[in-house]
């Protein structure tokens, strides 16, 4: 099975290893090396304890970090005093916030002006025209959910926020992407910035933006736009690069100017792919809009946040359902535009009349609705899902609460506790060296160097102890996520019925805002690190399951047939053929799982996980820019390490 073609599914930065070339001996070797590194770390920890923790073997000195935080706090103080005097604010930031705040309000008012029948007709018609009748029905269902959960107005506010912020993200993202697609140097320069932006936890974005743009919709729109903008840059650049060189060459040789090449050849050919980037951007915007409710953005996120602050799981579920429907509808519509699939086949000459007819219909509906005094959906006409959901929740809590609490205590005593003290109790340089060595073993020298620097960075930020505590939590949560994800993914790839059931559930879980997982986790696992861990695992599981399933299903049938005909048992088939051949997907799954777990660190602080996440939340709540930002950056450092550790060796292409 040495030189079989790799499954097409897994791709991206988790490049495959040497296609299984070295076989088990190399693999064993790697793991032996890793075990040796861990053994050294443990020995170092015990040695430090035996020596009574001398100063040279302690945690990272905090002097630099303290100075950095004090400096940031100084910046904060300066901004508070000078917000209305400094030209930077008078002519830039204040403009952006006033302009954006108004844009959101205007869009919201426009949606309100259309009334609910108007919005529904417009949405469904648009969806039908660009994506076919199935998607149109889905959009109709989404509007139905908004109305029947009694969250029509909130949904419209969220929609307005998403429209405004996606517009800004695209306004800046597409030109930057085009530039990165055409210039290699620019691409190299911008890539680390995008990496950084994607690892930075969403919560850590909030603090600096509140400072610069104020509380409420303006800051929410900016922060959502910034958070959502990396994929559109990346994918636009990729799309431009993928335009066949021959086409560009042909156009150039016919005497096209660079501008003509761009607008007549590259952009039209790259259109489909760019639209997929737009789709990704919208999905990120949806998730950020919910988190932005913490800084005063209204809409569905606010509804969830408020329900959770009253421990009303049912109400939070209702609002979560509305978000899920919004996300799925937006995803299907923009995704269909990108794939160009299932568009109704309208003859050329009928297109204009059709468009006109649609507009007339919409205007007519709006006019009639307004004349009849219809506005938002009447709140009285709603289905109450909250009560039954709450009943189920309480029943589950009563049934399995004691067991889960005991399980939680056990995890703390035997897993989280020891790992935490190992990382915080060892000398900082030993931990850093161990991390660098591990990354080197698994992903090559470059990754090792980056990891070492990331650890030193976390130390320089002055939050070493908390960073190590967080790291221990992330490691445990990741291990659990990956183990569960692989098992469920393998089962799913074996059983089509299970896959059909699980797929929509995974879809919903991926779009459900992470807030929603917190309160049930507290009810079952009490306060502290364990519920945070559980919430993180649940949050990170869906993509892992999906990637494992995809990877295994992507193994070519002839290969399986060959293995079977040689008498492989099912277990052999799985461990010797399918899993190794799905290695690309598996690595990507591990990588994605870990990064998602990391992004839940801050959320975990809301249920008592402490450490870095708590400092971010605390910094935001108590206006301590220094502590909040330093902790956010330390999370990025950990993310860099974990990302490099799991990206796999970049094999020279065969």
């Amino acid at each position, binding site marked *: 099975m040495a030189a079989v073609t790799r499954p097409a599914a897994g791709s991206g930065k988790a490049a495959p290893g040497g296609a299984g070339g070295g076989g088990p001996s190399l693999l064993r070797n790697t793991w032996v090396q890793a075990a040796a590194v861990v053994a050294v770390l443990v020995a170092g920890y015990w040695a430090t304890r035996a020596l009574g923790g001398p100063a040279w073997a302690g945690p990272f000195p905090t002097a630099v970090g303290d100075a950095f935080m004090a400096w940031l706090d100084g910046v904060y103080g300066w901004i508070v005093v000078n917000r209305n005097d400094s030209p930077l604010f008078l002519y830039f930031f204040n403009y952006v916030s006033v302009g954006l705040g108004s844009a959101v309000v205007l869009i919201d008012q426009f949606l309100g002006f259309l009334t609910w029948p108007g919005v529904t007709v417009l949405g469904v018609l648009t969806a039908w025209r660009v994506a076919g009748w199935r998607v149109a029905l889905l959009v109709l269902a989404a509007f139905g959910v908004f109305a029947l959960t009694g969250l029509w107005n909130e949904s419209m506010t969220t929609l307005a926020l998403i429209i405004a912020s996606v517009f800004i993200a695209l306004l800046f993202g597409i030109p930057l992407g085009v530039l990165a697609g055409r210039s290699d140097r620019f691409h190299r320069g911008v890539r680390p910035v995008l990496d950084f932006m994607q690892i930075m936890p969403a919560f850590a974005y909030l603090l600096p933006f509140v400072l610069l743009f*104020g509380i409420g919709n303006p800051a929410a729109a900016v922060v959502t736009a910034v958070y959502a903008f990396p994929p559109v840059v990346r994918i636009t650049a990729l799309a431009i690069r993928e335009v066949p060189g021959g086409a560009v060459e042909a156009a150039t040789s016919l005497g096209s100017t660079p501008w003509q090449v761009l607008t007549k050849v590259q952009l039209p050919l790259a259109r489909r792919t760019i639209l997929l980037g737009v789709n990704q951007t919208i999905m990120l915007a949806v998730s950020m809009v919910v988190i932005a409710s913490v800084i005063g953005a209204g809409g569905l996120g606010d509804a969830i946040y408020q329900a959770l602050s009253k421990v009303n799981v049912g109400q939070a579920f209702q609002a979560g359902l509305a978000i899920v429907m919004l996300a799925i509808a937006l995803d299907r519509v923009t995704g269909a535009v990108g794939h160009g699939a299932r568009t109704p086949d309208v003859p050329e000459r009928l297109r204009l009349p059709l468009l006109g007819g649609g507009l007339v219909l919409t205007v007519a509906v709006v006019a009639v609705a307004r004349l009849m005094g219809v506005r938002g959906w009447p709140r009285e006409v709603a289905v109450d899902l909250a009560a039954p959901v709450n009943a189920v929740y309480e029943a589950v809590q009563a049934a399995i609460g004691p067991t889960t609490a005991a399980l939680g205590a056990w995890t703390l005593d035997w897993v989280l506790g020891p790992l935490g003290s190992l990382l915080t109790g060892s000398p900082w340089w030993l931990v850093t060296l161990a991390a660098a060595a591990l990354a080197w073993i698994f992903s090559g020298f470059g990754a090792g160097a980056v990891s070492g620097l990331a650890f030193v960075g976390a130390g320089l930020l002055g939050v070493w102890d908390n960073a190590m505590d967080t790291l221990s939590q992330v490691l445990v949560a990741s291990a659990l996520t990956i183990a569960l994800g692989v098992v469920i993914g393998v089962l799913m790839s074996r059983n089509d019925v299970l896959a059909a059931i699980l797929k929509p559930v995974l879809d919903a879980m991926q779009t459900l805002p992470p807030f929603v997982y917190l309160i049930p986790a507290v009810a079952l696992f009490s306060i502290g690190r364990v519920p945070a861990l559980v919430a993180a695992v649940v949050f990170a599981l869906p993509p892992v399951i999906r990637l494992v399933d995809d990877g295994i299903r992507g193994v070519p049938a002839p290969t399986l047939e060959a293995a079977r005909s040689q008498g492989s048992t099912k277990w052999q088939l799985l461990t010797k053929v399918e899993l190794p051949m799905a290695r690309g997907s598996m690595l990507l799954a591990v990588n994605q799982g870990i990064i998602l777990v990391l992004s839940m660190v801050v959320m975990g602080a809301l249920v008592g*996980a402490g450490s870095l996440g708590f400092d971010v*939340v605390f910094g935001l709540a108590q206006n301590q820019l220094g502590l909040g930002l330093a902790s956010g950056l330390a999370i990025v450092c950990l993310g860099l390490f974990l990302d490099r550790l799991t990206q796999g060796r970049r094999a020279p292409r065969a």
Partner: protein
Amino acid sequence: MPRQDPRGPFPDRVRALFGTGARTAPRSARRGPGAPAPRRASLLVRGIAVGLALAAVSACAVRTDQIARDPGVVRMALNGWVGYEASAEVLAYILREEMGYDVQLVRTDEQPSWQALDQGVLDVIVENWGHEDLMDLYGPEGNGTVVDGGPNGNVGGIGWYVPGYVVDEYPEIAAVDGLKEHTDLFRTAETGDRGEFLGGAPGFVTQDQGMVNAFDLDLEIVFAGSEASQITEVRRRYAEEEPVLFYFYDPQWLQEELELVRVDFPAWEPGCDEDLEWVPCDYPVYDMNKIFRTGFVEADEPSYQFLDNWTWTNEQQNEVARMIAEEGLDPTEAAEIWVDGNRDVWEPWLPEGRADR
């Protein structure tokens, strides 16, 4: 309104356009069937005028306290505990239904709310706990963007609480010396061989670590992270009669659902909480007050006069808070029920000439 504007007055017509908002109910619709037409017209006018405003804005400097607002909208901060929400929702309900205002409730933490007042994004905080440092920064002595609106009638106490069943078993625990003997009771898996002190939400006022230090208590603070998760945890332990020691406050509706005992510490004296690392006293008693944006006070509209007149008691607040948190009523519904049943209480709050509307 800006206090001083070197470039002359920013046209009021234009300023009135921004800031209508998110959670506003259509005012005209609530006023009855006769009103939709002006609403539509005004929306169009607003649209054009906002465009003009944007054009005007791009030609000159923008100060945050100039962020324009519609005089018909009151923008209230909504801090993260249910008692606050009860006050805010009742006030919002009266402002909407009786006085014809639109009300925007913006959910933020305590400190960011002050910042929002400073930036002119919000008009009022209806329940403020202390925060003298922020008053120094933003008040008349500092930026001059906020003013103290006087007490709102609620008296707040923060303190350390234990459930009644713990005190039944160990009566001495209700005072600091007895607590010191029994910190081992509160050990949990999370804190190992130290006792656990369950902290509040990160945004709340706290001096717990200073008290732990000053009284030499063998406790570790675990932050619940939000009011909701703290209450969930306390309720869970209460149901199982497990010991728990936690940060809590009054007025709080949970105080009536569970039997909680406040641990006695030496009383607060001025200055004893100056160093937050060493606080040898209890929390002070807070006379909760309202904080207004200076511009909101200067405009002196009926909405301000109403909020200025308003005061109510802890019992009244709890009545509404319990409906919201315990019975799971929609906050607006809870406010409606209270307002319908207590006309004699709130009618005096209305500014003169408004009582008969």
